[in-house]
């Protein structure tokens, strides 16, 4: 087969278009535009609303709170991103989060341990419980052919119901009429960062997890194998990758991170496990959106998580300042994901021009 030279393009332009940041930025811009259209259609001034978002999230008074939410969403983004590296979708973050939280609460309330040890034990217990729970999906997928996306979704409400049962009937704070545990002892409180009110040691913990994830992903054989499976599972199997073990490890790690996030939420003010309080803010799916936007790449996660944190926290500001329902943040998250998925159109068109066949 003979070839002729392709029309040359300026390399700088090509490099710019192919840069991994182009797609996420484009998706966010399109989502912001669509959000504006929805607001105009609902009789809302988009400029005021978006100003409300940014101010709500980034005003100096709010930065502390924004930072703490950033940590939690980043954690949940890692929960989704780890299995995503090998092409699996972990949508059971809510159940894993709740199981981690309730376990940490139980340890914090009942374990007879001295101060420093108690916090550590509570976080570890949350991680282990949620990790073991999430790991169930691996054999279900590898041995029984039940996709991880299905099993995590079916397992999640079971764990949420279990947590809810425990806090309602077994660990309930009898004094208050609310479904919540008693306040954890001081020994079980996470350390603070300087005089910040919201962001605490939990944020540092999640950032550490991110660094570990990045190192494993880029510098180890296991990370290489995960990425290989994500690119072509049969290629990995043929090359000697233990798919079952990796899937187990990835799901356990993802669950453990969710457990850590759950523990962090319970070991922070108001230092209780409150029924529904862990899942209500929607950090799980904000994390999913951020992880998809970053393609699971660890170094892009902080950026995409920042975007969704601003949307999430700023949503409240938007509601207050511009009377825009907070749910618009969810709409924008969803639009980002959809736009991202539809980018294949552009890529397919690009591939078609360069395709060779016989």
């Amino acid at each position, binding site marked *: 087969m003979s070839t002729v030279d392709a029309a040359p393009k300026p390399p700088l332009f090509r490099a710019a278009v192919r840069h991994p940041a182009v797609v996420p930025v484009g998706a966010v811009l399109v989502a912001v535009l669509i959000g504006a259209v929805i607001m105009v259609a609902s009789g809302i001034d988009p400029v005021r609303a978006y100003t409300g978002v940014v101010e709500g999230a980034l005003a100096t008074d709010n930065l502390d709170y924004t930072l703490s939410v950033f940590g939690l969403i980043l954690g949940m983004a890692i929960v989704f991103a780890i299995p995503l590296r090998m092409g699996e979708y972990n949508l059971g973050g809510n159940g894993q989060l709740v199981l981690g939280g309730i376990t940490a609460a139980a340890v914090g309330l009942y374990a007879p341990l001295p101060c420093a040890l108690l916090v550590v034990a509570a976080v570890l217990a949350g991680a282990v419980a949620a990790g073991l729970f999430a790991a169930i999906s691996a054999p279900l997928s590898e041995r*029984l052919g039940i996709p991880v996306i299905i099993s995590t*979704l079916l397992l999640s409400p079971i764990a949420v119901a279990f947590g809810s*049962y425990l806090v309602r009937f077994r660990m309930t704070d009898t004094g208050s009429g609310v479904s919540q545990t008693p306040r954890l002892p001081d020994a079980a409180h996470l350390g603070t960062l300087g005089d910040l009110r919201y962001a605490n040691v939990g944020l540092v913990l999640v950032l550490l997890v991110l660094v570990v994830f990045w190192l494993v992903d880029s510098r180890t054989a296991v990370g290489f194998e995960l990425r290989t499976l994500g690119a072509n599972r049969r290629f990995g199997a043929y090359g000697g990758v233990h798919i079952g073990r990796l899937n187990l490890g990835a799901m356990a790690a993802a669950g453990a991170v969710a457990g850590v996030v759950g523990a962090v939420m319970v070991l922070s003010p108001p230092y209780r496990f409150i029924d529904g309080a862990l899942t209500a803010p929607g950090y799980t799916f904000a994390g999913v959106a951020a992880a998809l936007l970053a393609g699971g790449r660890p170094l892009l996660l902080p950026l995409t998580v920042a975007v969704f944190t601003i949307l999430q926290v700023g949503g409240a500001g938007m509601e207050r300042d511009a009377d825009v329902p907070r*749910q*618009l943040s969810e709409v924008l*998250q969803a*639009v980002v*994901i959809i736009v991202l*998925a539809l980018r294949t159109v552009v890529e397919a068109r690009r591939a078609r021009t360069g395709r060779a066949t016989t």
Partner: protein
Amino acid sequence: MNVLEWSFVAAVLMAATPVLLAALGGALCAQAGVFNIALEGQMLWGAFAAVVGSHYSGSAWVGVLIALVSTAAFSAILAVGSARWAADPIIVAIGVNLLAVGLTGFGIRVLFDVSGTFSPPDLQGLHRMTFLDGVPVVGDVLARQSPLVPLAIVLALALAYWLSRSATGLRLRGVGEHPEAAGSLGVDVTAYRTTVVLAAGALCGLAGAQLALGNVTVFTENMTAGRGWIAVAAVMLAASRPAWVLVACVGFGAAEAFGFRLQGVGAPQQLADAAPYIVTLLVLVATRLRWLRRTREVAV
């Protein structure tokens, strides 16, 4: 507690119907080779549209019609994205599910200025088939149900017959089994896939309408509460065959109705919440174990 009475059968059918309608849509898609996991979000949209339609028109049937049409339109995102533009259907569906949660929550805030639950006192629900009162057995089971309940069962059987016997059903199965081959025979794969995803949207619209205007008369944020995922599991269990989807969904309905009865005798509500998922998972595992025993070839 007595489960051996007709009212229990009625409760089973009521719980099963929304899931069945959505699962039939999922089964159609699977037969055409589309993995549709947007059922949850589309059902939620259907419930929202049904309540909005019924509220503004004062007629539950207008609500059903609006749910049907608007959910089909809503499913165009998945239809165009995955069938026409070859986007990853899983990622599109995750987006669609999230979009439904956001848009419906946003919608009741903007339209009615309420948060969480919208249940105006004059909201029209679907009529019960009270004319069946007094008919033995049939009346006991169906008199307190909306007409969508028997419709769903008839639809399941009709779809099973249509898939196996009609020329279009044959082509649809061909599209799912070997799209390239179907295309080479002049079957328009994209059109078939687009159509089934839209049809699944319409069925999810019906499912949502049954949920919000049949089972109850209210719209609550996230009221589908995972039923769309149970529907996806039912499609897997039934290997996409509509008649077996019916069986799987009745099984799910039984789990939910049984959970409610348990609650009636003092068991915690959380057990009722978890029961359908536990049962679905266990049955899924059991059928897969049998399947595994039959095929020994396991990739390492």
